[in-house]
């Protein structure tokens, strides 16, 4: 029986600023709507490779893949509540996480 794998997105933290980043088409983004979604192991590995390349260039740290489900609108949503929290910000200070803005670099 074939292994069912979840779609995945790539998480990292910005080395200089510490903010949560996702790997998007042309670089790192904050908005999950712009995150690249890997639908199989091979593309997941590819995401990881790209992330690790930027880790080696001292752009990001703590690079890892996280399982997501993809809604009808195509927006990925992490399966685990920890990664959901990373995208949503502190639940007790909703005022602190406005619309995600793109990283400056």
């Amino acid at each position: 029986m074939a292994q069912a794998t979840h779609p995945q997105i790539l998480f990292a933290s910005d080395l200089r600023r510490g903010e949560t980043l996702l790997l998007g088409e042309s670089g790192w983004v904050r908005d999950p709507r712009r995150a690249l979604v890997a639908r199989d192991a091979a593309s997941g590995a590819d995401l990881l490779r790209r992330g690790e390349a930027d880790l080696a260039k001292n752009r990001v740290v703590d690079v890892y893949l996280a399982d997501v489900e993809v809604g009808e609108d195509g927006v990925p949503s992490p399966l685990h509540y920890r990664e959901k929290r990373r995208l949503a910000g502190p639940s007790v200070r909703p005022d602190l996480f406005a619309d995600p803005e793109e990283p400056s670099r």
Partner: protein
Amino acid sequence: MNVHDPQFVDRRNEPAISYRYDQHDLAFVRSRVAEFREQVRRRLAGALTEEEFRPFRLMNGLYLQLHAYMLRVAIPYGVLTSRQMRRLADIADRYDRGYGHFTTRQNLQFNWPKLVETPDILEALAEVEMHAIQTSGNCVRNVTSDQFAGVAPDEIEDPRPTAEFLRQWSSLHPEFSFLPRKFKIAVSGAANDRAATRVHDIGLRIVEGEGGARGYEVAVGGGLGRTPFIGKVLRPFLPREDLLAYIEAILRVYNRFGRRDNKFKARIKILVHELGAEEVIRLVEEEFAAIDREPFAYDAEEFARIESFFASPPYEAPPARSETLEAAKQADAAFATFAAVNVARHKVDGYAIVTVSLKPIGGIPGDASSAQMRALADAADAFGFGELRVTHTQNIVLPHVKQDDLFALWRKLDAVGLATANAGLITDIISCPGLDYCALATARSIPIAQAISKRFASIERQRAIGELGIKISGCINACGHHHVGAIGILGLEKKGQESYQITIGGDPTLEASIGEALGPGVTAEEVPDVIENLVDFYLSRRIEGERFIDTWRRLGHARFKEAWRKEGVDGVDI
């Protein structure tokens, strides 16, 4: 030296209430800032890998958390001047998001600093004799103490000189900066232990020996976390002149023999547990006997020099009974409640110790906005010789307030939301930041605290319940000290959901005990009901004057377990 000298620190308006840096202390923190600035540069340039940079980042208090970096600023033995508090407010506004979080080790955490700005933050701290040195990392951490130090009636000796003495000794220690794991020391100088010394790696209690000589009861191997332990006494009386040599002996034994194979078994409490207290005592005494005492020959002089900074402020001599205070209590019921709950006896007639609660009903425990920090600084200047304390229950203390001034103080606090009259009551909850902030967490903790707080909002009900410490940790690392809460709550993950284990019977004082589990974990929604059931059971069974913990000790854990189950709470199997 004059104001143009770079080593001059302008303190014209500050009373001498705590340790003051001399040029060496100042040079040291400035060197540290320069060193860290260079380490950041090397990290960004790739000369240091993240793995290599991390311990040095941590030894300057900088963590990488869920959403951002987090900077843990040291507040040595919990003492802050108003100037320092204002600087923290400025940093919050300039480099963070306008607030800070006071912790269970008397430190302050900023939740949103950037790595590239942290050297500037550290420089801003150094200007007011503050730092973030060794607030993380596998080294000796902030030496904590009693928030009522110097002013409590039950005090044998002010523990702060000892804490400062140890702070300097432990700063950039060449031999003990790469320990198996973190190392926490607490010092208490009173009959009542308000510093939780029994759950620290080393707990020191100042005691009097023969002929009135001062010394220390030394306990080792206390700690919370995955495997909580109460510390074991190695020496009931260690003469003061032997303090540094003895601590060095303990640290050397730990550095050499502490486990390094398993991060969760690396604290000294595990070494004590696995070797046995007797063997650890033998190893420590053997090492202590071999240590050359010559380097410590001038410790007594240095200790006296440090001690001189902790002299009492220039107290006036008001009468023991304040008519102003009594009249205000008669006139204002809310103030009367505050005076009854948040004000403690001072060793000097006519003065009082005020606890400012950072636990507003439904609020985030331990958080203070920059505006509130400035208000606290102003209050300290107006009413308290410019001194503040941070407690390890995440509150602020104004340790020298004239009883005559209490009402005026309360009004100022009330204006900025800092007058919650719940010190030590059920809504004075300790909570770690939990999964809302912390990368280590397994569940959120703050919303649990908020829900319980709202459930018990009624001040009358709180006072009827009396002293009850609820402590919440968002993971097994127990930064919320849940093990020693009369009611402890531990947030875990169960089947993809946040799940909360409740314990009862913890105690952080000299009657230290670790809480016992009630049963399977419950959901976040169920927690306030569970707490309410436990409280109602306690109220129905207590004898006059019994606190929650007393009733639990008298009746036994089984009765409380029954009571919880009888109320029909469905727990998820753990």
